[in-house]
């Protein structure tokens, strides 16, 4: 398919901004004026619409089909939420509008804060972080502020993270200026408590933990773990990527966590838009509240206002109050369930366990327990016996009409396939997926080439990711654009995490 720039013709155009009659032209000082115009696309509107429609047909979303991308919680995105976010009172509201002209928006934010506090079992919420990873950074900056206030800022430099963690956790630790202390996973898939004990002391700032973990397992020793950290004055951070498993069933605050981030684009159904937007509110216990980002959204009787008078705040992590349109969608999603969020999580766990039961004989199951909202299989045996890797299984699933699960993650499982069906899939869909997975395992023995050459009949075949790294082409170069098909393929296969 051609790039939009390759469809461009000089002089063609779609939009024509109005120009009021009789308005005198304004002059840009010559030394500041644009010399060469940007080479933006020049197309008429019909061809623009066709271009983007054709692109959309080369993409797979939850609307297209089953999308069991582990740890990403790809559930149905209700369309009512889109309609509500597009109400002019929300969509066309200027963020600098005076408080009296934004009472509905402020009330919505305040109510969302309240429900997130109830769901997480904590006291105070900031909606500001733009995504889960920014929530992590914000949480770690809160830790820094907390210990600085206690005069322990220099002393507490270490943050403990298990080897099953998302890559964002260690990356956030570095961005916050902390040092990483890794901790192992035990044979049941819990944190190795013996390993942990030797690593937590008065130099520890805290723990970052996803619970249930990226193995889809609830840490059975969570109370003991919390006690180990709290005993030395350290804090507990909850990565909310897997909150979809436990809403209304178990709350991070009750597990002993002091700081939580919530991925609104996972648990609370903000559509992920091919990579964003997201939302990463954080909830904290009372003692961390003074450090939260400004402004705080507070209620005075019937009025809502922004409070900047927070002398101990860490500052701002993003513009304004955060991604407000995301709040509208996620709050509408939460209100559609109310207390029945418990049922949402219960069905997510039921669906995952059903798929696990159907697949446990066809693939290797490294941690043989009941799972929570997701589970991790290994294609190690298929690879050893038939040369069929996790990537091959993933690509072959496309031939069956499914989006693949997350692969090669978590890192502790070789040839990992991390499967999260979510609560919104019907049993028939789960059965069709299980049938496909079982068929692929069978095919691997009978005709391994089927998987190794997959996908078939898609817009493109398997792409040469190594070539893309060696020969970096990251924009269209017009007359000088290279013809990469004339250049040799690069050797090597990328077996890196895809998902999460």
């Amino acid at each position, binding site marked *: 398919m051609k790039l*939009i720039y390759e469809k461009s013709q000089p002089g063609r155009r779609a*939009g*024509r901004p109005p120009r*009021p009659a009789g*308005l005198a*032209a304004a002059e840009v000082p010559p*030394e*500041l004026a644009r010399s*060469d115009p*940007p080479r*933006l*696309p*020049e*197309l008429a509107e019909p061809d623009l*619409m066709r271009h983007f429609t054709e*692109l*959309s047909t080369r*993409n797979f979303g939850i609307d*297209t089909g089953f999308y069991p991308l582990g740890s990403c919680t*790809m559930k*149905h995105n209700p369309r*009512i939420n889109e309609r509500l976010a597009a109400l002019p009172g*929300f969509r066309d509201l200027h963020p600098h*509008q005076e408080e009296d002209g934004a009472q509905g928006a402020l009330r919505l934010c305040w109510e969302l804060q309240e429900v997130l506090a*109830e769901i997480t079992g904590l006291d105070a919420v900031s909606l500001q972080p*733009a995504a889960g*990873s*920014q929530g992590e950074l914000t949480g770690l900056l809160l830790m820094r502020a907390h210990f600085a206030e206690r005069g322990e800022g220099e002393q507490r430099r270490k943050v403990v993270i298990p080897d099953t963690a998302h890559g964002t956790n260690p990356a956030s630790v*570095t*961005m*916050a*200026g902390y040092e990483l202390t890794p901790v192992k996973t035990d044979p049941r898939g819990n944190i190795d408590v013996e390993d942990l004990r030797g690593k937590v002391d008065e130099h520890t700032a805290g723990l970052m933990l996803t619970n249930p973990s990226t193995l889809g*397992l609830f840490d059975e020793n*969570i109370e003991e773990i919390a006690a180990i950290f709290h005993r030395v004055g350290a804090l507990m951070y909850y990565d909310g990527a897997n909150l979809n498993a436990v809403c209304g069933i*178990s709350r991070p605050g009750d597990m*002993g966590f002091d700081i939580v981030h919530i991925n609104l684009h996972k648990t609370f159904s903000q559509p*992920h838009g*091919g*990579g*964003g937007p997201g939302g990463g509110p954080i909830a904290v216990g009372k003692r961390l509240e003074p450090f939260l980002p400004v402004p705080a959204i507070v209620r005075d009787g019937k009025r809502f206002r922004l409070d900047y008078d927070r002398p101990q705040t860490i500052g701002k*992590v*993003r*513009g*304004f109050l955060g991604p*407000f349109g*995301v709040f509208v969608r996620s709050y509408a999603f939460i209100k*559609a369930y*109310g207390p029945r969020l*418990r049922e*949402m999580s219960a*069905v997510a766990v039921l669906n995952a366990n059903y798929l696990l039961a159907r697949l446990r004989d066809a693939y290797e199951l490294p941690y043989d327990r009941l799972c*929570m909202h997701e589970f991790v299989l290994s294609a190690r045996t298929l690879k050893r016996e038939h040369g069929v890797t996790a990537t091959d299984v*993933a690509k072959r699933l496309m031939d069956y009409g499914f989006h693949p699960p997350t692969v090669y993650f978590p890192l502790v499982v070789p040839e990992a396939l991390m499967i999260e069906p979510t*609560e919104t*899939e019907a*049993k028939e869909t789960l059965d069709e997926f299980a049938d496909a997975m079982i068929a692929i395992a069978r095919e691997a023995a009978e005709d391994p080439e089927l998987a190794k050459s997959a996908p078939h009949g*898609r817009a493109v075949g398997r*792409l040469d*990711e190594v070539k893309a790294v060696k020969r970096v*082409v990251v924009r269209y170069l017009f007359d000088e654009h290279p013809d990469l098909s004339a250049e040799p393929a690069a050797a090597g296969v990328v077996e890196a995490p895809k998902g999460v």
Partner: protein
Amino acid sequence: MSYLALTDADLEAMLETIGVSTVEELFADLPAGVRLGRELDLAPAMSEQELNAYFETLAAENLHVGAELSFLGAGMYDHYVPAIVDAVLQRGEFLTAYTPYQPELSQGVLQAIFEYQTAICELTGMDVSNASGYDGTTVAADACFIAKHATGRSKVVVTEATNPQVRQVVKTYAPGFGLEVVEVPHRDGATDPDELREAATDAACVIFQHPNFFGVLEAAPDLAAAANDAEALPVAHVDPLSLGVLQAPGNYGCAIAIGEGQAAGNYLSYGGPHYGFLAARSEFIRRMPGRIVGETTDAEGNRGYVLTLQTREQHIRREKATSNITTNQTLLALAGLVYLSWLGPEGLHEVGETCMALAEHAKERLGLPLAFPERPTFKEFAVRVGRPAHEVVQSARECGIQPGYVLGRDYPGLDDVLLVALTEKRTPEEIDRLAEVLAA
């Protein structure tokens, strides 16, 4: 209401396959002490119709830019968003996709991002762009990260005439990065290049906004030269809608160009979600935070697109990554691409010119003293209103006009100054109304 498909018959069959008799048994691993043991204290579930009514009530309590005649800007602008943007963004294949980890099923998003990266490079005159950042504030922190590692220096300079929220976010990120932040004051609404040169000694980068927060056109080439003299990376924070009429930062010596993308194709949405853009000279590509899409081929030689240079990123490099970013703002960046494609180079130039012409017309028509009379401006300008600006805002709003932003919120001493923004959506008649209200 419910978004679940489960029937009683399904439940029974599934429990049997799993080998348990109740759903409760699936939670056996949860210690008793951490179970909630009660219902969540939330209002009862609403039907779709009830949701619709409830959120309409909330929305009705907000005075949006269609309900008041608005001259508010200060970083977020009421530009026109064409219908084609809505149409493309509501395509479920884009809207409901995750990050494009599996390229064979994601060519639509990947090619769109590649086209977006190209558009941003064209606008800014840079070699490489990432797939978007969270907003126009966080991309400034990203630029600081690049500069710190490229120069080995630990000071960053930001002009005081840069958006206050951008400066606040840089200061929040700075301690974690091990950076010290120095601000250079404005002189009559603009930055003095000599003062900037002095501050830039031993700095990793110099961030300046152009047009700046007051709408003033900085002597941008001189500011970039001042930074280059000190071997600090010049970082220009620019308005995408200015780049049809204003020179591209890459053409006056900048190393990095960043900005808030909202004005180009995104609704105001009370501050988000929007997208930030981050573009740089090619030598910085391996230090860039965020996703980057690259071109490649499949085994048959067909052209295709993939997420590339991923060894910069958290899911591979973990604690050694250039950033923790995973989610970015793809859908909003796609809106930016659709918008810029709809305008084309001619349209972008026309929008910029019209905004600027309207602003000049408004300066004249309002007849109020300019706060910075010597300075050329783009689509926004600062006027002295002769009394506390917040009082003027209050009385104008009683007449249905939101006249602008109170600069004293961020700049002590400018309490009588109002920042007035003009987009192509405003008309000379509306400017007349503003003039009447401000004269009253």
